[in-house]
């Protein structure tokens, strides 16, 4: 029987399980991203094919410059693919206009960044509430309270980012990412700026969100210990996914 708090926090996540849903929530087909530097074309992605299924926690590892962040930007709709397809919850991002991708990001994607990327002028409360406001479904105080409690932020909501530790800032960023119930959370080196203890706390939270609430997560990291928190690790090199390993 479903846990009521799970239903409340992630109603969509609990309507399916990995075993019964075969369609990937995210799929890329021959995904290319080429940057032009002066007169030189620099390919960052060279035909990536991946599938992420609902409820998965996938870590993507690779050395600097292998295209991890670029892939996160493209699959999250922040950047347009040069070639190939990105299917997110059945929507082809590569065929979408900029404004359609914006709409898709708003409703289906939550980002967590290495540098937290909180608005410095707003306190934690408003940083989280902002995502709900942009989402457009109005402020849901009960959901807000549940998320804040889950991430241990209740006592820190009135503080601005400059008054929070790195770990606290990243927890605010995670709260902001999940407050509007996205289909997928994309985390770009979420522990890159954190000490070991805070890193473990943040990774544990991501793992909890995935295990307890079925939140699909794709996390980029260069840290094998962090990557081990995922169900699966994809290795990237020179703009390609070179292999994948299932952990759990």
């Amino acid at each position, binding site marked *: 029987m479903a846990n009521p708090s799970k239903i409340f926090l992630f109603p969509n996540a609990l309507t399916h399980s990995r075993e019964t849903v075969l369609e990937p929530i995210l799929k890329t087909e021959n995904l290319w991203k080429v940057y032009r530097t002066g007169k030189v074309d620099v390919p960052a992605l060279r035909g990536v094919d991946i599938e992420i299924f609902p409820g998965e926690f996938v870590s993507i590892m690779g050395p600097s410059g292998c295209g991890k962040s670029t892939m996160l*930007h493209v699959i*999250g709709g*922040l*950047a347009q693919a040069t070639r190939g397809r990105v299917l997110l919850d059945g929507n082809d991002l590569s065929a979408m206009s900029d*404004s359609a991708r*914006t*709409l*898709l*990001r*708003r*409703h289906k*994607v939550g*980002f967590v*960044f290495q540098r937290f*990327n*909180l*608005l*410095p*002028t*707003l306190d934690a409360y*408003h940083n989280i*509430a*902002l*995502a709900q*406001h*942009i*989402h457009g479904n109005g*402020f849901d105080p009960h959901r807000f309270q549940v998320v804040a409690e889950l991430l241990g932020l209740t006592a820190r909501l009135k503080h601005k980012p400059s008054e929070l530790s790195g770990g606290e800032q990243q927890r605010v960023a995670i709260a*902001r990412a999940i407050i509007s119930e996205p289909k997928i959370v994309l985390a770009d080196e979420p522990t890159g700026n954190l000490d070991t203890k805070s890193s473990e706390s943040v990774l544990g939270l991501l793992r909890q969100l995935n295990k307890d609430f079925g939140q699909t997560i794709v996390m980029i990291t260069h840290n094998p210990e962090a990557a081990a928190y995922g169900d699966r690790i994809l290795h990237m090199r020179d703009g390609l996914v070179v292999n994948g390993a299932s952990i759990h």
Partner: protein
Amino acid sequence: MIGHMITQNVLHRPLRTLITVIAVAVEVTLVIVVVGLTTGLLTDVAKRTEGVGADIMVQPPSASVFMAFSGAPMPILIGNKLQELDYVQAVAPVLIQFNSVNGLDVVYGIDPATFDAVSGGFVFHSGHALQDPNDILVDDVYAQSKKIKIGQILHILEHDFHVVGIVEHGKGARLFVLMSTLQEMAGAHDKASVFFIKCDRTDHTPAVMDEVRQLLPRYEIRPLKDFISLMTSSTLPGLGAFVNTMIAIAVAIGFLVIFLSMYTTIIERTREIGILKSLGASKAYIVQIILSETTLLTIGGILAGVGLSYGLRIVLVMKWPTLTILITPDWILRASAIAILGGLLGASYPAWMASRKDPVEALAYE
């Protein structure tokens, strides 16, 4: 939410906010005070002209409603003809000269008997009526502003006058001398600039005007009842252009300051814009934030500008009591609208620029 965000942004950068608000305040003050000065001047002149107490004013053909600009081309004998018309109770010829020494003043050369007959006579605060050729009357406002006392010598129009009386303000000019003296000084013997006509009854004014038109075709014949409505900036050559130029300068100041302020803000907040875009904020949402912030800053500037205008009026009137600065709700609203329009125009390009930022590049901005 947007309200909270823009308020926090404004408070987060107090110096930028202060400079922007001050610039908008200067813009608003410039509009309100320049317009207030011109309309104040016109209204003051109009009220004082109405205060003569006449019903009709006769001027030479094509003469300006600003009498000081019209010289003295009318034979004074016309006054006798006007006096003979039906329903005319009194006719006062006045020779008007413009004094530009120690300020700008209009001097009325009057015949005390006829001027009193039309105006009902001066109310004397001190002193007595004009008697000798070198006598001069000053009104109380002028006397207060120049600290003039009875018996003092007043040097105007390259002539030394003897102050013999201080009278209540509001009878056309602030300075009065004998018409014969002024005619002598101006080389305008037996000439007058204007005739003020007092009718025996106010409702006879139209009939008297018709008579005057028959007697003096092509002359400017104006009822004084509506004189204030005639005194607009468009009736004084160049004044409208001056006011419009000052408004244009004010708008340019507001536009440029807001443009620069918001432009630098957008550069400074590039990463924040990237964050908003990563959250799914649309271009319209980002434009809305920038324009709302501009509006908030402009409103701050407007409030400061209105306060500054009233403060400046107090200071100016203390220093120059003859100055009239008319601050009207109408022009406060117009100045506010001008400031908001200029601000929004100035912010529109930075807002557009912000809305088009690439989210990946914006997020990578240091």
